[in-house]
């Protein structure tokens, strides 16, 4: 069984800055509205991983493994789910000068997929839109910060 959704958005910024921000797992919780806490002990590469506490499932860590990392262009995480797994496939591509298209596909595989679809998918999809919007803001903020500390 599979439950899936896709979201995408285009934001101002350059691929390098976006990659630096999204591959900094410890920093996710500082800007991503979906992530209340996050952490990792590994480099951002296949075989590595980390954990998050989301605002959808508060008070509990969800662990993930990095199963695909294409520096600058995207990464995929895999998290265990009851009777299956969740894949989050993130992609970043140039969409014109100074613009980057962000896309995310979320797939829940296995017997839990319908339950997930019923209870949490809508909230996660809405959060993904919020994540994209905040990522745009964060990129601008980091650029200003770099500018002023120069």
């Amino acid at each position: 069984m599979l439950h899936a959704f896709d979201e995408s958005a285009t934001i101002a910024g350059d691929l390098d800055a976006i990659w630096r921000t999204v591959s900094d797992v410890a920093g996710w919780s500082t800007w991503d509205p979906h992530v209340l806490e996050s952490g990792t002990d590994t480099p951002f590469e296949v075989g590595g991983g980390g954990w998050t506490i989301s605002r959808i499932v508060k008070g509990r860590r969800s662990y993930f493994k990095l199963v695909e990392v294409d520096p600058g262009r995207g990464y995929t995480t895999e998290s265990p789910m009851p009777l299956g797994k969740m894949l989050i496939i993130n992609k970043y591509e140039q969409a014109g000068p100074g613009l980057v298209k962000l896309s995310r596909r979320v797939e829940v595989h296995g017997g839990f997929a319908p339950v997930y679809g019923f209870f949490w998918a809508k909230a996660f999809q809405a959060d993904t839109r919020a994540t994209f919007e905040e990522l745009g803001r964060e990129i601008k903020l980091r650029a200003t910060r770099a500018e002023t500390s120069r």
Partner: protein
Amino acid sequence: MTRAIVIGGGLSGVLAATALSHHVDEVTVIESDKYPEQPAPRRGMPQGRQNHMLTAGGAHALDQLLPGTTDLLFAAGAHKLAMGRNILTLSSEGWFRRVDDDAFFIACSRNLLDHIVRQQALTNPVITVLQETKATGLVGTASRVTGIRYEKGTEPEQTLTADIVVDATGSRSKTPQWLTELGVAELYEEFLDAGLAYAGRLYEAPADAAADFPGVLIQTVPNTGKPGAGAAFMPQEDGRWIVSLIGTAGGQPPTGEEGFMEFARSVGNPIVGELMARATPIGEIKGSRGLANRRRYFERLTLPEGFLALGDAVTVLSPNYASGMSMAAFGALALRSQLKSHGLEPGLGKKVQLDIANKVAGPWKSATSTDRWFPGVRTNIKLGKGTVEQKLAVRWSRVAAEHPGLLKATYQVATLQTPQNKVMTLPLMGALLRGPQQTPLTPAEALAQFPQIGKLLSSAPADLSKVEH
């Protein structure tokens, strides 16, 4: 255009500003003091001259708010001291045995910690700090705070409007009075004052002291009929040591040269005095008094919208429990989590105060139920008899001194990683019921667990056999 005002730019204030910075267009921090350019003492942070230790739980919260902060602290010379491996502890019920466990404290000067936190946080372009600016009141009504009054130097008082105002002015917060001026009902406050006082000094560590020299904690012992007396000795950055001597009403540590050393030698064991005698003092001995436990029950109040309080402005815990900075970080993290879930919508303040109250409840209970047993204690809390609780605490400490499992649980609680009501397991309960099974460690056996101490003392051996507890 949305604005947050944070009154007070200490640890709570700077962390709260960080938490708010993603949810408003600008954050203005109002700080009455002037920040030093380098890690250094400042007038608005008088406690910064005493030993400060950050719990593992607090360190986690700090890194969540400002990732990489603890790494920067370690790079600047802060020490990561695992309670079981790197700290020699004389508890009320005897010396703790060394145990392989990761629960830790970070030991460094408070000045360094605050400096690095400011460096991390205040490059955020959303945050502006108005230094040497003093908040003098809140603006608004009993149902909504809309800003603050403030004064800077000799300029006339001004107002600044905001969508949210956070009080982070610490233990001397004027909020209870400011809220009453707006017509808000009186804030209920509890205090328990054991007359605790600190006297502290910095030392240059002797050249032959090991780089991994352990910390030493001689805990104050309640319920002996005598004032509590203890000592904390911790390695700091830059090859320094810090010593804080601790005493309760009727037995407060002196801040004069001679009395200071005498006091250090008179607590449960003279080891801290012996270490001081081998080091070079830096600067004067500094005293801190008025260290009562104090809790303001904001969560019970019908709070005006657009207002909340954090850190010592809410709860001051006896510094003996080394938890105030961690509570500051927990409070800011709770604020961030609630902002992420609910934004600035009505009820935010109440939700944050409830989260803080939940975090504070355990440490508050353990601080007040220990400190109540010191002679001369003053409190407005209606305390029960508490004798069963007291006996249980004594047994817990006594068994923990020899039982690795219970000791690890104790360290989990002390480093604020797990609340006390969550650490108990059936095997630990069994150990507690069985009671102590071994003879307590002698001072010589306890000290032998830390060869670094023995090596340093070997040049002029001292008599460390005395135990007064």
